């Protein structure tokens, strides 16, 4: 439902001239893009291309070297709070000594809870009902990723920043992620996901961002981002 009305509201996430360099080596070049409601953007790049760094900058964990980030039209500064986004990072952010439900209850306390969703129903939504009482330590890597996805699902936020959501997931896991992304986009949310796997988000061609506009003429991707055609 990519209704035009979604475009006059300020984009959920916008970056202007955003670049980051560590010890004088540029990690990702000047980026300009905007993310409107209902869009899923895939960020590709071989590992080490700065995908995780960009997500950490957008989440407000890292200060960019240049450029600005706007959440719902307001500039994001490190000090200002960023209540509109949920971050899924490699480690997942789960305490291994606690059970899956305890982790989700904590996340609900910290970020709040999406209407109509509870820790138990979020766990069911990622196909883990019945695993609520199992300590996270005993879950497999794929199951841990699903609990982390349940945490992101539970957060009442419009913007998802997912770092390698498909890692450690089996076939049904990948379909689960695609379903969640589609439902999230359908409900007016937006998502920025990083992956180096080709199978990512097969339903519809998501918009792609080149991390560094390669000087040799970005034939596949230039600054004018091709619109999301779903």
């Amino acid at each position, binding site marked *: 439902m990519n209704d035009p009305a979604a475009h006059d509201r300020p984009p959920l996430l916008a970056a202007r001239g955003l670049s980051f360099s*560590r*010890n*004088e*080596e540029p990690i990702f070049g000047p980026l300009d893009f905007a993310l409107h409601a209902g869009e899923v953007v895939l960020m590709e790049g071989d590992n080490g291309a700065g995908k995780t760094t960009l997500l950490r900058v957008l989440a407000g964990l890292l200060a960019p070297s240049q450029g600005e980030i706007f959440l719902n039209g307001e500039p994001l500064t490190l000090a200002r709070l960023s209540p509109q986004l949920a971050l899924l990072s490699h480690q997942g952010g789960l305490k291994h000594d606690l059970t899956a439900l305890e982790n989700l209850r904590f996340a609900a306390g910290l970020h709040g809870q999406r209407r109509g969703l509870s820790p138990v129903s979020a766990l069911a939504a990622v196909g883990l009902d019945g695993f609520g009482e199992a300590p996270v330590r005993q879950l497999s890597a794929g199951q841990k990723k699903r609990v982390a996805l349940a945490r992101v699902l539970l957060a009442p936020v419009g913007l998802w920043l997912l770092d390698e959501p498909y890692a450690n997931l089996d076939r049904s896991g990948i379909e689960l992620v695609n379903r969640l992304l589609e439902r999230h986009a359908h409900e007016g949310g937006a998502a920025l996901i990083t992956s180096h796997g080709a199978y990512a988000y097969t339903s519809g061609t998501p918009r792609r961002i080149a991390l560094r506009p390669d000087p040799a003429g970005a034939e596949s991707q230039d600054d004018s981002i091709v619109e999301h055609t779903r």
Partner: protein
Amino acid sequence: MNTLTYWFHKLGSPPTFHRIATRVEPWCLALALALGAIGLYGGFVLAPRDYQQGDAYRIIFVHVPCAWMGLFAYAFMAVNAFIALVWRIKLNEVLAMASAPVGAAFTFVTLVTGSLWGKPMWGTWWTWDARLTSELFLLFLYFGVIGLHNAIEDRRQAARAASFLALVGVVNLPIVHFSVNWWNTLHQGSTVRLFGPSKIDASMLWPLLLMALATHIWFFASVLARARAGLIELDAGKDWVRKLAQDDAS
């Protein structure tokens, strides 16, 4: 941009600062050595013998300037650390980190000369005199800053973490001084004024001030040298450093 900020901005760019530092440093060094020589001559030869402490008091011509320098270096580091943290200016990070080892060296000399003076006066190498104790913990603060700076790989982040610790330390210094004084009165009663001749007359004063000036100029010479090394390390990828390396080799 008015001329002041233009000049300050210009100085801030590493290659310019490096060029200026390279020119200024030898002169600082020469001046410091000259002033130091005169000061020491004044203190060790011209100044009269103290009627109470005899010639032992001459150690103040080394001890006191170094004590002042230890504190001045920390203040210099704290100011640069504050600017570096707030405005993220590369030059101030480098200057803050450059002044830490120099300050530590001066504090170390203060402690050693203090104990060298305590031996003839009090018969023991170490006296838990309030000021010496504060100096000891100032030295530990310096080692903390230097240790933290070396422990982190990313140079910019290491400089900012160590700068933050330096600022925390600056808040802590007066508190340490106050608490050590209170502690001293608790355990030793009021101590006789240990350091310094019974009274300072003019012939003792001018060498002392001259030595203080010499150590300050020496401090800047050393900080400039270390800052140049720090800037080269930070800008290793840049071409002004590459050119510099080639010229240096030839």
